[in-house]
């Protein structure tokens, strides 16, 4: 049976009960692409679908607060109406939730230029493994008040707390935005990718693509997204054309590329000392070990 709390208070009660009974829970956002690993499948599903929708959006602040179950597609649509966007755009596509993206710290093609999930999260609300509601961070773009539970929860794979809401940094959509395809062999594509990323006007995305990966949509090479004011994009375009037989491509290819990417998998720390610290963090926030047990430990 799936638990489906309607409020933060109810979620806190469910987790608190599970902790008392030492009953394992598996956190589920949209349930679309977060499958983590085998260990949690045996646990009781705890659906976070009620925490959905925009909570606060003041476009002039370039920040937004949404329920964790809000889909990436909805985040994109809501912000697009104000000519803004959130560059989270994780590998896996737009059907997943904001909460899962933050919980798994899944990056995307824009992360290299515009920031990883940890760089884009301003604050969050979560219920930890003891049933306590934590609200670290805030919704302003600069904040060093207190120890950083926001970074701790980002990428914790729901093993320390169930995220219910997230505040994110947004950007204005660029005035000019073009996608180009450079047909190149793998070695050359790799070189050009490095050069472009190190250029004075780096593209906002620059990914190696393989024909078989995109169901034959485009040939092997590089997919490049230029963005900025018109002059910057024009110069970038000229630069690409000097490097290869660059061809204008459909911007929708980015979504296709993301949808075809393999799921991110949790990784344990490399060294024994950091593994020991990890265990202590887990113990501090989920002493009964009921939240997504097995992952990261």
């Amino acid at each position, binding site marked *: 049976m799936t638990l489906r709390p309607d409020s933060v208070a109810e979620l806190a009660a469910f987790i608190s009960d599970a902790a008392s009974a030492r009953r394992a829970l598996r956190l589920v956002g949209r349930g679309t692409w977060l499958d983590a690993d085998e260990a949690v499948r045996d646990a009781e599903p705890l659906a976070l679908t009620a925490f959905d929708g925009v909570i606060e959006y003041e476009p002039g602040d370039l920040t937004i607060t949404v329920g964790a179950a809000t889909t990436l597609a909805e985040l994109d649509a809501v912000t697009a109406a104000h000519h803004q966007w959130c560059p989270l755009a994780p590998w896996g596509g737009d059907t997943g939730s904001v909460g899962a993206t933050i919980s798994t710290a899944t990056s995307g093609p824009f992360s290299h230029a515009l920031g990883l999930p940890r760089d884009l999260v301003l604050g969050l609300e979560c219920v930890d493994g003891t049933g306590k509601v934590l609200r670290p961070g*805030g919704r302003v773009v600069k904040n060093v008040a*207190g120890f950083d539970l926001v970074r701790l929860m980002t*990428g914790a794979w729901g093993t320390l707390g169930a995220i219910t809401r997230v505040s994110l940094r947004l950007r204005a959509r660029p005035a000019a935005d073009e996608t180009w395809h450079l047909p190149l062999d793998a070695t050359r594509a790799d070189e050009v990718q490095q050069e472009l990323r190190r250029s004075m*006007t780096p593209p906002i995305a620059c990914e190696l693509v393989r024909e078989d990966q995109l169901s034959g949509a485009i040939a092997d090479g590089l997919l490049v997204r230029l963005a900025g004011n018109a002059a*910057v994009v024009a110069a970038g375009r000229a630069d690409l054309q000097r490097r290869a037989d660059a061809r204008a491509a459909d911007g929708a290819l980015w979504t296709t590329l993301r949808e075809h990417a393999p799921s991110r998998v949790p990784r344990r720390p490399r060294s024994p000392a950091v593994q020991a610290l990890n265990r202590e963090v887990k113990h501090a926030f989920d002493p009964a070990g009921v939240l997504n047990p097995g992952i990261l430990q």
Partner: protein
Amino acid sequence: MSLAASLRAIVGDTHVLDRPAELLVYESDGLPGYQRTPSVAVFPGTADEALAVVRTLARAGVPFVPRGAGTGLSGGALADGAVLLGLNRLKRIIAIDPVRRVARVEPGVVNVTLTKAATPFGLHYAPDPSSQTACTIGGNLAENAGGPHCLKYGVTLNHVVAAKVALPDGTVVELDSDDGGYDLLGAFVGSEGCFGVALELTVKLTPNPERIVTLLADFTSIDDAAQTVSAIIAAGILPAALEMMDQATVGAVEASIYAAGYPTDAAAVLLVEVDGATVGLDDDVQGVDGICRAHGARDVRIATEPAARARLWQGRKKAFGAMGRLAPHLVVQDAVVPRTKLPALLARIAAIGDENQVRVCNVFHAGDGNLHPNIPYNANDRDEAARVHVAMRQIMQACIDAGGTITGEHGVGLDKLPYMDALFTPDTLDGMCRLRDVFDPLRRANPGKVVPVRYCRERRPATATTDGGRRTDDR
């Protein structure tokens, strides 16, 4: 052997201070108005010495306070009877990798020294607190320091790639942004010396822009200046810096040796810097110029030559120092509000200043909504000090009510402790204490800072950690 003698055996006689007259130097940091005297001050000269000191302190069970250059503005480096662990002698730049664009440094390297060392490679270290000519990279890490150019380039958190850390019990861990597990590096950045001491850091270096243009716009209304800030950002232009100074600040700067030629009759000035590749930059400059004028700027000065730009910046970077001419003490605040709330907040701050008959000087990172409402005053005038205290509380509460925070880049330290429970719930503060207890279960590192002690419950750590019980990463 006494603790001081044990420490002398590690670092040498001249690098341990325990006479009251010597310790007087270390009773304050960059924030005037607080004095706390350490019992001993110790200054290791190498990472090995620093680790030996940390382990000696752990064995002795003694609390300690790490300190970089002591330029912090929150009282975070004050040691009240604890051992002061100065890391400013660890100032080796170990390696600069111009291809990967990273530098490995010891924590005592001065911020601007790293930038100078990176200059031959066309690179710089981007976070640029106003104290950058004195503050250390290790201190920046502990405080998650910002600076004017963080609007475009991000704060310290966004620039630290890895850190080798001595936990308070003497365990050494390598925290790496590329490692699996929890983001412990992210948790360590900004932990204000409460989670341990960084012995070595790997930080990103940023390519120098091809061209930099600095604009100075002056306004007859502080509200117009504040509206301009949001308009520039909304237009999709991301300036490298977007700073505001009010008339009180401009007056203080212009009367000082840091005079930058700001118009003293302006209600507010905006300092806007646009940088990057030459191509397309003029479009952004024209965009900023046009937005400023459309929002009522009397004049917009545009500086492109290094000397002219440096002069415009000098007044901003030295503004806190210039305020020193106005009164013997200065309250420094660091609140952040959502950008669109700036006009209302600035009006509210002015009203609070009037009501309490105190003079507020605003100089701040407007693009981030990061306010620095500073109040020069005489702490020996008890009536004035009381009014300043009331005004500060009211300003902080106004910022919290507007959806903001109490510190954007200076840290909580000692100074902002009283505001923490207005901002966070008791459960959230308890969660922060639990995170601290993972790194420092005995609460010996920078005790009494960041989270009010009453929110930290007694609890038993998951594993015993006395006497260096945790396994240490190979060094």
